[in-house]
């Protein structure tokens, strides 16, 4: 969070969309206006629990350019790291939180001849902000979701001229990718498995990288606890199984840059000095993995890892 100042926000509305989805509206708590954000942007919320702090990223679903309120939709993940449970069970209207300014790692490609948007589950959220910005460009939106979420998502998509919801395995991604005209851009957002298989299919069909856009979310999965030696600070810290390396560094009061906290943007990249890293990012190349690590998602295979911070 060294990049930009935090913005204080007040929770102004909480609406349940179904048993596991809630829409949360945030307003500026300092009497100022929010920065205007573009379609596809996300913010980071600082959630201060009793035992720990979560810094979780959420896509903005409010229309691009909104400055008096931002809206997010949060899925309750009982077996998650706790941030979503905090937002579902502890958050109340009137509460204030710290928010990072919006960052956009998933913008609409302006030169696209067509937009093909593939979402799974709560991965539909960044696309909700796309609607008013798609202009005259043709598009297709396909959303794969559980039957129990269908009604809630249909309500969210009510102002879309057309969309496709798939609650059975009838979304044939390869066929869809094969029949797109030249100049189509592909946008993927959903769980890692969904995105990986769609990306693999796209590459097998010859889609060039510049026309594949991905928004990774879901947050880092935990792993074995390990010890990190912070060479420059001369500190040794413990990384718990449900904590990320970045969170452990922050808990030790060391100021570390971060942005997306999902292994996508490269902002938190650190130099790796020793140890056997468990790379989980989507940013560094294979050769960069030899000397760098992204602490927001990556962990360690070895009991100890040494990084330059």
């Amino acid at each position: 969070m060294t990049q930009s100042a935090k913005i204080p926000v007040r929770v102004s509305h909480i609406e349940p969309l179904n048993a596991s989805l809630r829409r949360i509206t945030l307003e500026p708590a300092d009497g100022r206006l929010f920065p205007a954000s573009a379609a596809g942007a996300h913010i980071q919320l600082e959630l201060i629990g009793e035992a720990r702090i979560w810094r979780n990223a959420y896509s903005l679903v409010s229309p691009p350019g909104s400055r008096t309120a931002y809206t997010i939709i949060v899925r309750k993940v009982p077996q998650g790291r706790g941030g979503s449970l905090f937002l579902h069970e502890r958050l109340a209207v009137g509460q204030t939180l710290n928010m990072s300014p919006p960052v956009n790692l998933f913008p609409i490609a302006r030169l696209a001849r067509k937009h093909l948007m593939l979402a799974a589950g709560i991965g539909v959220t960044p696309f909700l902000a796309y609607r008013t910005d798609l202009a005259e460009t043709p598009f297709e939106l396909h959303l794969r979701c559980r039957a129990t979420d269908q009604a809630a998502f249909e309500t969210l998509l009510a102002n879309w001229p057309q969309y496709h919801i798939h609650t059975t395995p009838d979304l044939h991604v390869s066929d869809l990718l094969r029949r797109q005209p030249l100049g189509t851009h592909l946008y993927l957002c959903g769980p890692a498995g969904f995105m990986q298989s769609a990306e693999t299919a796209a590459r097998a069909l010859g889609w060039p990288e510049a026309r594949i856009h991905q928004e990774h979310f879901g947050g880092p999965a935990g792993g074995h606890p390990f010890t990190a030696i912070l060479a420059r600070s001369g500190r040794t810290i413990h990384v718990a199984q449900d904590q990320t390396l970045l969170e452990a560094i922050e808990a030790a009061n060391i100021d570390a840059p971060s942005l997306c906290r999902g292994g996508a943007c490269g902002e938190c990249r650190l130099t790796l000095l020793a140890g056997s890293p468990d790379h989980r990012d989507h940013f560094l190349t294979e050769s960069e993995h030899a000397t760098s690590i992204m602490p927001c998602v990556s962990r360690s295979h070895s009991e100890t890892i040494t990084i330059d911070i």
Partner: protein
Amino acid sequence: MDQGIKSRPRYQPFRIDPTGTRHLIVTDQPSPPPDTPEATELWTLSPHPGTQIFATPTLLFAALAQHLAGQGPGFRLYAIGTEPFIWDAAHIGTEAGLTMQEISLHHAGSLARRVHCIHCKTNIEGVTTNIVPCNSCGAPLFVRDHFSRRLRAFMGVRVDAETPGILPPTETLYA
């Protein structure tokens, strides 16, 4: 003569992009590239066995635009030849929705340039010298290495603006 201008395109040697699934090569050169895989089509201006032949670049580009309208992901376009030819091909490709990741350009043959007179916006074809008179406004133009991908031409700038009538010697540099 290197003018130290970064917009001067640099070209890689020809090779088929293994991430593509269908490949079309267009060329204005008499000899086709060697060793092309099976899924490759070759369009030329001169007769070769197994290629589609066009009488002029204009006819080839018209057919290309039509061909591209029916293509989808996996298509790769390669243009081999003189710079005006390969950049015209790239223009047809990007107009059809291809990104430059799906197009590869390879210079072969003459170095003759298309020069864009920045004063009257006229293109002068086949320029081989460092100084060329604009065939529309008559200005003596210095041919810069400054290349515009949008205009598909090198920029020609009046060379005697400060000393009217006094010109550096004309040399043939782009034969």
